[in-house]
């Protein structure tokens, strides 16, 4: 367990996995809350164009991917506001346009081929370079500052948008901020789990946590814990077992989901018994012994 830290590339990989494990569920929870669980996946498609642009311009792909996917996320938000009848069609155009654009641009780049996109699509946490670490640290901190610092505002907007407007919250601004934050998260997680699996790390820890929770704050805390756990342990497992880290992380997350799903009936039953104890006079489940 200690020897893993002797390698500089593994130190960087574990740091990146840790940050992504915290940041991805922190933004994912708001997307899940307003039934946009698949949004991260769409942004991932769009980010491919950004990665290819970085290759074409020979600059760091993280930053071009951030710019392109943020622009894409803002476009998705605009479609949601102004889109007339078929918002889903507009989104499909954007998603597949992003993917096709990526493939086209990478092949236009001198010496580039579709194979160069594979790293971005499936992740390669062990090749995180020193300059990538700076970007990942900065961007993760920005994502966390938004998701935790504005959690009450984002909660209100995602819970009941109309009520949030009447409260006087700058709903459009918050929606745009959330969209851009999601885009940044996708690009940060790109190196760790890959663009095609980013959405999994944003959604599955939240889905797993909410099976056993009753409140938003607790769900947020638990999903961040689970996200960190699977991201870090997946990276470690991939090092020793010599398996791809992105796939390991996602499969671990699904295993955690399944384990909690198996636990759910127990938690629900214990809660019902406790509620019966608390509220016996109200006649709820009055067959249970009071105080049980």
């Amino acid at each position, binding site marked *: 367990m200690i020897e893993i830290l002797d390698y500089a590339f593994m130190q960087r990989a574990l740091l990146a996995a840790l940050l992504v494990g915290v940041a991805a569920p922190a933004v994912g*929870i708001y997307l*899940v*809350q*307003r*039934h946009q*669980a698949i949004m991260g996946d769409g942004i991932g498609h769009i980010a491919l164009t950004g990665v290819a642009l970085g290759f074409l311009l020979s600059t760091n792909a993280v930053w071009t991917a951030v710019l392109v996917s943020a622009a894409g996320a803002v476009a998705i938000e605009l479609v949601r506001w102004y889109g007339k009848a078929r918002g889903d069609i507009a989104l499909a155009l954007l998603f597949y346009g992003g993917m096709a654009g990526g493939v086209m641009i990478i092949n236009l780049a001198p010496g580039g081929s579709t194979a160069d996109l594979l790293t971005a699509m499936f992740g390669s946490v062990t090749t995180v370079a020193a300059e990538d670490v700076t970007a990942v640290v900065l961007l993760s901190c920005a994502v966390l500052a938004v998701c935790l610092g504005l959690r*009450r*505002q984002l*909660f*209100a907007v*995602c*819970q*009941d948008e*109309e*009520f*949030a*407007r*009447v*409260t*006087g*919250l700058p709903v459009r601004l918050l929606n745009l901020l959330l969209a851009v934050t999601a885009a940044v998260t996708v690009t940060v997680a790109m190196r760790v789990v890959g663009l095609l699996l980013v959405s999994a790390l944003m959604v599955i820890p*939240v889905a797993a946590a*909410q099976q056993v*929770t*009753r*409140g*938003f*704050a607790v*769900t947020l805390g638990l999903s961040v814990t689970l996200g960190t756990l699977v991201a870090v342990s997946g990276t470690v497992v991939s090092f020793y077992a010599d398996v791809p880290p992105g796939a390991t992380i996602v499969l671990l997350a699904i295993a955690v989901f399944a384990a909690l799903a198996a636990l759910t009936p127990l938690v629900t039953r214990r809660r019902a018994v406790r509620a019966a104890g*608390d*509220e016996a006079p109200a006649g709820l489940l009055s067959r249970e012994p009071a105080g049980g």
Partner: protein
Amino acid sequence: MDVPAPGGSAPVISLRGAHAVLGARPVLRGIDLTVGRGEVVALLGANGSGKSTAVRAAIGRVPLTSGELELFGTPLRRFRDWRRVGYVPQRSTAAAGVPATVREVVSSGRLARHRLRPLGRTDRAAVQRALELVGMAGRAKDSVSALSGGQHQRVLIARALAGEPELLIMDEPLAGVDLASQHVLADALRDQVASGASVLLVLHELGPLAPLIDRSVVLRDGRVERVARPEQLHDPACHPHDSEVVHPASAVPRIETGQLS
């Protein structure tokens, strides 16, 4: 409560000659609606008469194609003082994708007051007071998805009350609400009115709220059909079609089972 704004005698809501369309269909066709300070006004009418649209126009959620809207004497365009308004939307059955406790939902009604600051002691006290007022303090840690329709409605009302508004706007607060919750709601509303709040609410039937209501505005096909005091509404000889619009509690013997309706 805040100190009254300058020009304190202006009506809290003033809607004049309001026209609005939904899609291509004209839904409001020249509505005048005024709610004075401390007044409780009920909007009645059959389905499709435009009452929900009128309420949503009053909070600026439905744009007017013509006509004017002023809140607290300020034209909607320049109105920023949203913390004076507490809104209770029509209860939807669509649940959010992530669980939230009763207290978390009610606390979001406090955002207009504390803004970017963390929730302070005053804010927590206001949330607790709102929960107690609707009789949901004992369920504060429960998930809202575990509540009955009536309890859920009480939570939405507590959320609006948490902001300590001067004006409450409610869209069908009694729809799908059991009788026990209707009475809790009437008591909570009485408490608000006693402390000086104004209320505009859409109702299908007056139910236990009847004694609180100062004025009823009956809409029909996007126009104000008539304005009446609540007791005048129940005179079938005068207004034969009332029976299909409102169901006066006095006319129909009601069995109070407390079950979900």
